[in-house]
């Protein structure tokens, strides 16, 4: 009999323990303790959530510097609890945290895809009057600014991209990246005459064909169709206005490698590195993979021409990973200190260089990679635009639609209709 009671007790304990998991740490930032006596250091526990485990050592080092600085300047003992899940399920974990009132003080999120919905749900602190805002480059600032003009995050990772081209092949044939679609056709003819496949195609993963939409839409929005996004958000526009994107997409497909729907991103990178195609519709985020398979590879980033207007041949500039401060944080002061420290006049340059991120601020003066410089040249000439705010669900849809279009299962009109429908349902769900 005694044993049974023991068993029951253990069970009950286990149950209460499990139940306890749900509530643990429901008060964010349970710090501010000990303090009290004048002169004694205040201690603060800061929770951070950054989904980039591959860069852990750099973050750890930078955080250690920050801790030392807080101790020296403000006599605050900061202990940082850094959580780094893999990128795949980070959004999931973060959402659970936020929904269960267990928000980290500082968390990373995707500037274009996530800021709008997180801001709308009321999780992001307004950072507009923080000192770091003044240091941001003008071209970067819009990506972390909400529709009502508030800066809510500090961008870490930015991307400037169009398509990648093999500089060696282009130099051998005496060519430069084309600025109009007619020039692009000439380039393709010349490559074909030299028995080089113009494009590497890799459409197994839906997000790769998807890339053509931000490029085409961005270019059109910045030249002839400025209010496309606003009208789409009001259910007044239609993707038939973007039909021009098929001109370049068809051209790429007609001159690309075979069996594209079997080739994923990594295989595409290997094929591009091996010189199986002179160009690849892809961003520089594959630089590391390309160099891994061919360290000698010399490639550049160029803007994709989508029609015969050279003004529409622009680089896409967008921010991805950005740091935001939780609205419910109990340690806002220290959290804000850290956010500002990210763009610290002295330390920031080294930090961003170590992370291999592009310069985003006036305090960043380091040398970047050749392909980054390529793109930066265009950006400095003003030949860039802010990544259009196309809802993620529409981007997913366009990837699937273009895959099916490539496989011959959908017509151009089918794809455009599906996109209109996706945007309409986005409006419906997010009204």
């Amino acid at each position: 009999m005694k044993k049974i009671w023991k068993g029951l007790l253990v069970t009950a304990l286990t149950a209460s323990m499990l139940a306890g998991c749900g509530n643990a740490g429901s008060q964010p930032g349970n710090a501010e303790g000990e303090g009290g006596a004048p002169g004694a250091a205040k201690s603060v526990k800061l929770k951070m959530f950054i989904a980039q485990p591959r860069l852990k050592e750099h973050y750890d080092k930078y955080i250690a510097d920050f801790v030392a600085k807080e101790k020296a300047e403000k006599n605050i003992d900061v202990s940082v609890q850094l959580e780094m899940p893999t990128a795949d399920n980070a959004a999931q974990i973060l959402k659970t945290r936020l929904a269960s009132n267990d928000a980290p003080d500082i968390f990373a999120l995707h500037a274009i895809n996530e800021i709008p919905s997180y801001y709308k749900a009321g999780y992001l602190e307004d950072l507009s009057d923080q000192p770091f805002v003044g240091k941001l480059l003008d071209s970067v600032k819009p990506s972390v600014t909400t529709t009502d003009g508030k800066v809510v995050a500090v961008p870490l990772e930015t991307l400037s991209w169009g398509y990648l081209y093999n500089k060696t092949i282009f130099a051998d044939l005496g060519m430069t990246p084309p600025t109009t679609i007619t020039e692009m056709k000439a380039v393709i003819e010349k490559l074909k005459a030299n028995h080089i496949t113009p494009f590497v195609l890799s459409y197994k993963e839906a997000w790769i064909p998807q890339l053509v939409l931000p490029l085409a839409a961005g270019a059109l929005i910045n030249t002839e169709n400025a209010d496309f996004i606003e009208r789409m958000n009001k259910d007044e526009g239609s993707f038939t206005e973007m039909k021009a994107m098929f001109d370049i997409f068809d051209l790429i497909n007609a001159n690309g490698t075979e069996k594209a729907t079997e080739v994923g991103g990594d295989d595409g990178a290997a094929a591009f590195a091996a010189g199986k195609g002179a160009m690849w519709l892809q961003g520089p985020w594959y630089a590391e993979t390309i160099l891994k398979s061919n360290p000698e590879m010399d490639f550049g980033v160029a803007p994709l021409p989508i029609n015969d207007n050279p003004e529409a041949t622009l680089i896409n500039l967008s921010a991805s990973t950005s740091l935001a401060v939780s609205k419910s944080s109990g340690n806002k002061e220290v959290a804000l200190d850290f956010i500002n420290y990210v763009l610290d006049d002295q330390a920031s340059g080294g930090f961003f260089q170590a992370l291999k991120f592009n310069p985003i601020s006036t305090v960043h003066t380091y040398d970047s990679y050749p392909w980054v410089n390529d793109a930066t040249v265009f950006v400095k000439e003003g030949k860039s635009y802010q990544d259009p705010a196309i809802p993620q669900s529409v981007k997913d849809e366009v990837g699937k639609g273009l895959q099916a279009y490539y496989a011959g299962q959908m017509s151009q009109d089918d794809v455009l209709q599906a996109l209109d429908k996706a945007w309409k349902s986005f409006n419906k769900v997010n009204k």
Partner: protein
Amino acid sequence: MPVKSYKKYVSLFGFVAPAFVLYAVFLLIPTIGGMYYSFTDWNGLNRSYEFIGFGNFAEALSEDPDFIGSLWFTLKYVLFMIVLQNVFALALAVFIESRRRSKGFFRTVFFMPNMISTIISAFMWTFVFAQVLPQLAEKTAIAFLDQAWIGDPNVSFYSILIVSLWNGVGYMMIIYLAGLQGVPQSLKEAALIDGATPLQTFRNVTLPMITHAITICFFLTLNGAFKVFEVVYGLTGGGPGRSTQVITMNIYEEAFSNNFRYGYASAKSVILFVIILIFTFIQIRVMKKREVEA
């Protein structure tokens, strides 16, 4: 006697509780929660959401061609899997049972793929389909092998079947093997003496005697095939487009990409749950009737 029965329940509870608590916390409560959310328009992030009754269910069944498309695709897959998986598994089991010395060897070899996780075998086969087979076609000039195995929607259905079968047949085979070993030798000998051919013996003696194994295998295949995810995810990702998208992927897409409509995705899950429930219920009812005792 009431005291005694009370004691009985206490010890029953004592034994069941540890497993039941875990089951309830990690499965039962989330399931009920999911059903609850299926009646809301929660998006997984907002703190507030509204009750919309059967709105999600109505939308899924009437206004969502992608969901219906994935439903039909899954049904087609289920049908092929039930037939092929069981035919292959039974054939292999009979074959192995007929061996005298190499029994253990064959049993191990055919069961082996089952020990590899499904997602890993899907990635292995992606490599086979995308790299090995085209190379093989080039070297041996067997044009048939040079197909867009996972890129062409017409072919990729069969590629998915091949990998699922490769992975799943071994497990069913073990169950059939056990069933076959349970068939009393005396019955077979009696049939032999009565002049039955091996085929007749198999049809009229062996098959009825292993109906319970068939019931289990059909149940497992039916259940598993409806919930297929990893194989399709690893091989085609549902693509190109949505041509090989199964229900579970459609649900996943609805909840974790697209518009993050958790409520709507939960409603779809509940629909899937009901479908599986109905199908397996009918299957068990029909097949239980046919079982015989030795």
